[in-house]
């Protein structure tokens, strides 16, 4: 416990833990996704002329998605994050409590179950590894709805994630819908914590 604790983060995690315990993981999953949907409404809409300009905005940290998760690295129409944006929060929590609470595993499990909202947002369905995935994946998906590339709206497919202890979670359903080989996602996860794909859809 050598570093100063961020009690804002600690309080947030404790509130999430307590809500799971008292209201159940399904209700908390929904709460986190609704918060993400609401927050995304505050993000201004942007348009890029093509995916190269989109990527330039990522590198320049001007892309709205970059603002919520840091700089992702592009491989074709796939993007990956070398680090989980919640890593500092987890580290902070573990400074005080040696491990994340059991309730968080319950939330991750609930998030991975099929549901209408995760189907709509193309998140979860086996791609979640932690209690932070519901808010991160849904916020990214919702912010993605506010981005156009070449006049088309982007649609983000969450393909996989990796936990801090190295366990990989890949959504076979979303990988198949996106149209990429599972092995490609698996290989990217060797060097990444989070992988997603971007499709362009007619508005």
């Amino acid at each position: 416990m050598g570093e100063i604790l961020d009690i804002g983060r600690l309080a947030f995690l404790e509130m999430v833990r307590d809500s799971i315990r008292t209201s159940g993981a399904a209700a908390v999953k929904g709460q986190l996704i609704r918060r993400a949907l609401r927050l995304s409404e505050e993000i201004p809409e942007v348009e890029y002329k093509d995916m190269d300009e989109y990527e330039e905005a990522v590198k320049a940290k001007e892309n709205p998605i970059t603002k919520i998760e840091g700089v992702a690295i592009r491989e074709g129409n796939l993007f990956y994050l070398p680090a989980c944006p919640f890593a500092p929060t987890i580290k902070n929590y573990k400074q005080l409590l040696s491990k994340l609470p059991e309730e968080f595993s319950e939330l991750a499990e609930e998030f991975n179950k099929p549901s209408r909202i995760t189907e709509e947002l193309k998140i979860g369905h086996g791609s979640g590894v932690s209690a932070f995935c519901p808010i991160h994946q849904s916020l990214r998906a919702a912010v993605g709805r506010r981005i156009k590339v070449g006049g088309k709206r982007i649609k983000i497919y969450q393909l996989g994630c990796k936990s801090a202890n190295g366990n990989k979670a890949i959504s076979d359903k979303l990988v198949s819908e996106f149209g990429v080989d599972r092995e490609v996602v698996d290989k990217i996860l060797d060097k990444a914590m989070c992988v997603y794909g971007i499709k362009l859809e007619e508005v």
Partner: protein
Amino acid sequence: MLKRILQDFLREEGVVMAGVVGKDGFAIEYVSNGDVDIEAVAAMTAATIGTAERAGKEVGRGETNQVIMEYKGGNILIAPLSDEEVVVVVTDGTANLGKIRYEIKKNREKIKSAL
């Protein structure tokens, strides 16, 4: 089909809203006789049923059959349909609570199969 079943609830005296929501708090279908903020109702229904289920487990009372909240101006009834969905009915003060409870039980399987 689901909407039609829910509309049958509205024919019962005092029922102002009937809906099916996910336990994650997202509305699936609903009908109402007036202005209802379905997003708010769905979110609170999820929190309520979640808490009721946890409380039942905590005190060793098993699965939740129904949750009934009685107010001066009416009632809210919530009943699980499955592991994922619940039905919620909102009434005013004129509703026959026993009749609504019976209708929920009677239509449970029909609603489930319409999902």
